[in-house]
C-alpha cells in the first residue's frame, strides 16, 4: 500500500435479492449517497451465504464484510435470514479466533423500501472499518505482492 | 441372626434403633474422627462412616471405621460404587470384616462433578443393587462375585439408602422392593421433613410387606438456621422441605433458631415412632454431631438397650 494514499476500505456486501438489494436499488433511485467502497453481491436469500463465502472474501483482501437480509418474519424463504444471522455470529467468532477481528463482519436487516437504512448501514460500516484500518490479510497480501 | 452386628441385635429384639453419621476428616487426622466418636458416645447403636461424601476426598471410610471400632463404637461402613471396582470392594469388605466391622451400607455415590475432583473417572463397575447382591452372596454363599470360595466369609449386615422424595415418586416403592429382592437387611432413608409424603411412601411399603422383609430407619436432620432450611429446600436434589418448616424457622428469632431446629427434629422423631413399619431413626446432624446426645435424650430414646 502506498503510505501517501489514505486507506480506502474494501467492503463486500452480500445482499438478498428480495429486500436488501431492492433497498440498495431504492437508495440509488432516490439519489441517496453511500460509499463507493461497498461492492454488492446479490444473492437469492441471505441464507444462501455460507461461512466459506465470507471467509474467502477476507482471504482475498476485503477489509470488512456484511450480510444484509430481510427483517425478522419477512424472509421470502421463511427462515433464511435467521440462518444467516446465526452463521454470521459463528463466523464472527472464527474471525476472532484467527485474529482478524469480529468487528469486521456484520449482519443488517431491512425491508425492500428502506433505502435510507441501506445507505446508512453502508456508510456507518465503511466508517467503522476505516477506523479499524486495513485488514491484516490485505496488508500481508499486498506486502507479498 | 445373620451377623454379629449390634444394630441387627437391637432391631431383631424389637427395640427402636438409633443410628447416626460422621464424616471422616479431609486429611490424616484420626483425632478428628475420634472426637466425633466421643460426642456420639453411647447414645447411638451404630454410626455411619461416609465414603468420600459429595465426591470430596476424605480419609477412607474403611480407615475411619477401623478407628471407630478400636474406640469401641459400631461403625456402619458406607461404600460407594463410584470410586471402586468389584475387586476393590470385595477386598475392602473382607479387610473391614477382619477389623471387626460387620455392618455396611451399599450406595452409588454422588456424581464427581459435585466434588473436588470433577475430572476423575467414575467407576460404577456395578450399581448399588448389584452391590447388595454381591455382599449377600459373599455372606450367605461364602463366594466372591466371580464364583470362587471365600475363606472365612464376611458376615455383613447389609444396608442401603432409600429416598422417598426423589422422582419419579411412583417408582420409589418398587425401588425398595428391588433392594429387598437383592437381599438388603436394613435401609436408611433420606432425611424427612415432608411427613405426608413419607407416610404415603410407607403405605406403599406396607402394602407390599416390605417393612417385614427389611428394617426401615427413618432419616432425620436437625436444622440449624432458616438459611439452612432454605438451602436444603432449593439447592439439594432429592430433598423435600415443606414451606411450613421454612416459615417456622423464619418466624423464630435468630438466637433461638438452633433450639427451634432441635425441637422440630425431636417432634419429627416422636411422630415417626408412631408410624407402623419404622424400625428406628438415622440421625444425620451434619457438622452438629455434639447435639446428637441432646436430641436422642429429648426424644426419649436414651439409654440405648444393652444387648
Amino acid at each position: 500500500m502506498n503510505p501517501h494514499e489514505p486507506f480506502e476500505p474494501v467492503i463486500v456486501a452480500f445482499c438478498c435479492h428480495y429486500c436488501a438489494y431492492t433497498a440498495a436499488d431504492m437508495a440509488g433511485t432516490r439519489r441517496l449517497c453511500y460509499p463507493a467502497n461497498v461492492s454488492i453481491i446479490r444473492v437469492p436469500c441471505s441464507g444462501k451465504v455460507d461461512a466459506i463465502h465470507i471467509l474467502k472474501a477476507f482471504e482475498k483482501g476485503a477489509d470488512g464484510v456484511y450480510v444484509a437480509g430481510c427483517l425478522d418474519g419477512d424472509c421470502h424463504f421463511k427462515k433464511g435470514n435467521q440462518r444467516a444471522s446465526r452463521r454470521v455470529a459463528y463466523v464472527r467468532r472464527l474471525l476472532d479466533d484467527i485474529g482478524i477481528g469480529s468487528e469486521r463482519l456484520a449482519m443488517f436487516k431491512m425491508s425492500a423500501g428502506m433505502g435510507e437504512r441501506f445507505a446508512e448501514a453502508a456508510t456507518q460500516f465503511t466508517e467503522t472499518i476505516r477506523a479499524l484500518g486495513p485488514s491484516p490479510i490485505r496488508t500481508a497480501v499486498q506486502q507479498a505482492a | 441372626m445373620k451377623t454379629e452386628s449390634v444394630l441387627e441385635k437391637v432391631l431383631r429384639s424389637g427395640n427402636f434403633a438409633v443410628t447416626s453419621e460422621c464424616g471422616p476428616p479431609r486429611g490424616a487426622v484420626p483425632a478428628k474422627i475420634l472426637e466425633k466418636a466421643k460426642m456420639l458416645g453411647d447414645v447411638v447403636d451404630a454410626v455411619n462412616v461416609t465414603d468420600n461424601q459429595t465426591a470430596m476426598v476424605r480419609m477412607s471410610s474403611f480407615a475411619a471405621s477401623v478407628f471407630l471400632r478400636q474406640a469401641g463404637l459400631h461403625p456402619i461402613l458406607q461404600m460407594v460404587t463410584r470410586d471402586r471396582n468389584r475387586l476393590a470392594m470385595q477386598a475392602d469388605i473382607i479387610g473391614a470384616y477382619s477389623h471387626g466391622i460387620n455392618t455396611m451400607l451399599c450406595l452409588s455415590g454422588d456424581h464427581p462433578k459435585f466434588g473436588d475432583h470433577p475430572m476423575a473417572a467414575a467407576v460404577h463397575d456395578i450399581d448399588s443393587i448389584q452391590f447388595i447382591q454381591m455382599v449377600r452372596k459373599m455372606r450367605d454363599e461364602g463366594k466372591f462375585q466371580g464364583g470362587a470360595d471365600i475363606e472365612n466369609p464376611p458376615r455383613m449386615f447389609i444396608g442401603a439408602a432409600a429416598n422417598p422424595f426423589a422422582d419419579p415418586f411412583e417408582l420409589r416403592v418398587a425401588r425398595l422392593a428391588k433392594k429387598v429382592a437383592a437381599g438388603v437387611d436394613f435401609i436408611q432413608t433420606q432425611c424427612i421433613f415432608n411427613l405426608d409424603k413419607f407416610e404415603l411412601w410407607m403405605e406403599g411399603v406396607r402394602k407390599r410387606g416390605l417393612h417385614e422383609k427389611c428394617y426401615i430407619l427413618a432419616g432425620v436432620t436437625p436444622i440449624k438456621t432458616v438459611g439452612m432450611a432454605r438451602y436444603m429446600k432449593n439447592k439439594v436434589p432429592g430433598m423435600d422441605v415443606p414451606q411450613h418448616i421454612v416459615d417456622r424457622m423464619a418466624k423464630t428469632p435468630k438466637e433461638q433458631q438452633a433450639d427451634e431446629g432441635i425441637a422440630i427434629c425431636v417432634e419429627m422423631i416422636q411422630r415417626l415412632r408412631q408410624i407402623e413399619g419404622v424400625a428406628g431413626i438415622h440421625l444425620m446432624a451434619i457438622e452438629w454431631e455434639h447435639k446428637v446426645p441432646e436430641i436422642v435424650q429429648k426424644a426419649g430414646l436414651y439409654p440405648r438397650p444393652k444387648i
Partner: protein
Amino acid sequence: MITAERKPIDEIIEYIRPFQKILLVGCNECVTVCSAGGRKEVGILSSMLQMSFLKQGKPIQILEHTLERQCDPEYTEELVSMIDGVDAVLSMACGCGVQEVARRYRNKPVFPAVNTKFMGASERQGVWAERCAGCGDCLLGITAGICPIARCSKQLMNGPCGGSTGGKCEISPDVDCAWALIWERLKALKLTDRYEEIIPAKDWRNGRGAGPRKIVREDLAE
C-alpha cells in the same frame, strides 16, 4: 454416528506450524453429518489457517481433499498420489480415520483437527447427543430402547438413583434422567412389571474390559 468437534484453532496451528505444505483431508461420513470435518469444514479450516499463517508472514500451502471414509484402507489409498508433495497431513476425520491414515502413510506426521466425542444421534438440526457406549452386549431390548450405560451418568443398570429430580439427572437440568425415560417407555409399552427384574452385574469383557477389541468375520476375511 461418531460425533466430533473441531479442535481449538490455536492447537491446530501449533501442530502444523513447522510445515510448509500440508494435506488437509476430510471425511464424507460421520464428521460430515455432525458438521465437524466434511468437505465444507475442510474449506473453512483451510481458509482460516491460510489467513492465520499469512498474517504471521509465513504463508502455508494447503492441499484440500475429502475422502468417502478415512477408516477404510481402500479409500485412504487415494491419497497416495498427493502424499509425497506434502510435509504433513491434517485429518478432520474421527480418531479411527486419523489412525488409518497414519498407519498407511507412516513416514508423514499425521495430526487430528477434531476431537472425537461420542457415538450419538441427531436430536434436531445442529444438536447431537450421546446414545451408545459400545458396551458390546446390548441391553436395549430390556430397557425399552433407552441405554442406561450411555445415558445414565452413573451407568446404573437398576436405576434411578436418589438424585433424579423432575425427570432430570442430578448433574444438570439439561440432562434427562435415563431411568425416568426408561420408566415412561415401560409404562407406554405396558411392561412396568419388568422394572423389578434385577439386571445382574455386567460382564465388561464384552466392552473395553478385555482390551482393544476386534471383530473377525471368517466368511469375509481371507
